[in-house]
């Protein structure tokens, strides 16, 4: 019962937020809320492989950042009127969300497929380190792209166009992001209950048993990894629009760490955990940074304490029964 109440309350708050922000004069609240929703989406994508699949990826920012860059690069070419490639056919840039965002997902997903193909041949600690290393590799790749700003990053002239919606209006953008998040949540709920979801959960809980039953576990892990990457790419496309700027720092490992924190803080392996985690983490960041510029010095030990003492995360407090997750397997 408590769960339902919390969910409905959160939904109501989410829907009413821009109005509340306007009323209280905290206009920047819409931007903060949008950022929270985008990080929740990134957390959802990681949770699929981490909480439900038991794969600890410390390089998820690679897919997040790549999605952002796809949008930024396409936008740059569109606004400058330069084609992206001229051979064999001419492909121009675009500012249309209907093209750029799915493309961001596709590129991120394919990247995840490639990285996963190699990384998933290992497990445990090796997997953690390898995903971190690959993300770092991509970070350096984008740093070396002088044409797209290199280390300084790339500004985006305008947000994507999305048919009748005007995304330059923060409120409209917020509602679009909220809608996307709700759709992804619904789809994920479906996926988790499906055969594929059951397979993933089985792999997480007892991979050896799954193989003995006849499941080619590598294939399912790889598929989950690719889907997860694509979703992270979508979050990246959204963040690029939100900040109207991308830089290689979107792929650095602090970013990967933050997405991990969002998932763990909220409750691994639960559907709504990442949303709770994003809210908690980013609000904490907002509050603490008002107080001191050095808020990280508090956040760090806080994180350590949470890991040591409050492992089940926030959603674990709401869900009375043990969530369908928790604890990676090494």
């Amino acid at each position, binding site marked *: 019962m408590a769960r339902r109440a919390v969910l409905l309350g959160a939904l109501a708050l989410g829907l009413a937020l821009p109005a509340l922000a306007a009323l209280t004069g905290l206009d920047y609240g819409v931007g903060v809320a949008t950022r929270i929703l985008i990080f929740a989406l990134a957390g959802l994508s990681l949770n699929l492989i981490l909480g439900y699949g038991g794969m600890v990826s410390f390089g998820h920012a690679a897919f997040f950042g790549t999605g952002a860059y796809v949008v930024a690069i396409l936008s740059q070419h569109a606004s400058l009127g330069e084609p992206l490639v001229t051979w064999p056919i001419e492909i121009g840039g675009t500012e249309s969300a209907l093209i750029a965002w799915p493309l961001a997902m596709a590129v991120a997903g394919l990247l995840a497929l490639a990285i996963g193909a190699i990384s998933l041949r290992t497990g445990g600690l090796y997997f953690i380190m390898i995903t971190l290393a690959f993300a770092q590799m991509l970070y350096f790749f984008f740093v070396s792209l002088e044409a797209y700003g290199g280390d300084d990053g790339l500004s985006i002239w305008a947000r994507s166009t999305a048919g009748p919606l005007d995304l330059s209006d923060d409120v409209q953008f917020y509602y679009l992001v909220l809608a996307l998040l709700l759709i992804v949540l619904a789809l994920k709920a479906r996926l988790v209950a499906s*055969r594929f979801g*059951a397979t993933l959960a089985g792999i997480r809980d007892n991979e050896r*048993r*799954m193989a003995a*039953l*006849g499941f080619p576990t590598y294939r399912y892990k790889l598929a989950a990894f690719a889907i997860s990457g694509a979703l992270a790419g979508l979050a990246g496309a959204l963040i690029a629009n939100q900040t109207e700027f991308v830089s290689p720092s979107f792929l650095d490992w602090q970013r990967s760490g933050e997405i991990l924190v969002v998932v763990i803080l909220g409750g691994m392996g639960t559907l709504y955990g990442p949303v709770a985690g994003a809210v908690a983490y980013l609000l904490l960041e907002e509050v603490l940074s008002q107080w001191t510029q050095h808020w990280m010095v508090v956040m760090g030990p806080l994180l350590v304490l949470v890991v040591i003492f409050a492992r089940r995360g926030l959603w674990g407090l709401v869900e009375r029964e043990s969530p369908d997750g928790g604890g990676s397997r090494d």
Partner: protein
Amino acid sequence: MTEPILDVRGLDKTFGAVRACDGVTLALDPGELHAVIGPNGAGKTTLIGQLVGEITPDAGTVRFRGQDITGLPAHARAARGLARSFQITSLFPRLTALGNVALAVQAHAGHSFRFWRPAAREAALIDPARTALAQVGLADRAGTRAGALAHGEQRQLEIAMALATEPRLLLLDEPTAGMGIEESARMIALLAGLKGRVAILLVEHDMDAVFALADRITVMVYGRVIATGTPREIRADAQVRRAYLGDEEIGDEEEIRGADEVAP
């Protein structure tokens, strides 16, 4: 002359200085219940590891249903009908008994790249799962979390999961391990009921079970097969008596078998 369903020839496996398996050869006919016995350290677990695909043999071949499966990974062998149970119970503790078996059914019900329909409501998965549970006598425990089942029930669940995959060969690794007299008797009855319908390779320490069930027995000591034959032949074999069955020997004591289980 029917081809053996399982044809093992000359399996060798050495770990460092230990020869765990030395030229192990045995064969099973379809429908046969073949027991493998031997003292601790005889190499039984290593043998199973090589049969299911978790350990790569240094030499030798394994043929299953006429095909060479020596190089195949575990999941491919399972997909071909080679099912196993684990010596140390290996289930999905968070799922119900029904959920455990349904997952086993799912493994052999086509691929699992299905993202939409809720698996928990698929009759194609649930019905065969219930049947398997009934076969092992766990029908009334279907809704209990596997982690909450009694030890004996968990061992039964392992069998149910193996059965749910519609196997041609069942590799059972000490199914009565840790069971009391009553539970063991139940398990023996269960296995007796399966005889003839599916080939079974049974690794066991419980001599009552072995002599009650086996069509043939293979005896292993220090990695080598020292005898193969019917229960009567084995009982009479002097070498076997000396090495294993003799009254003063170690044989069927319940010992801590930690060293036997190869870490994954």
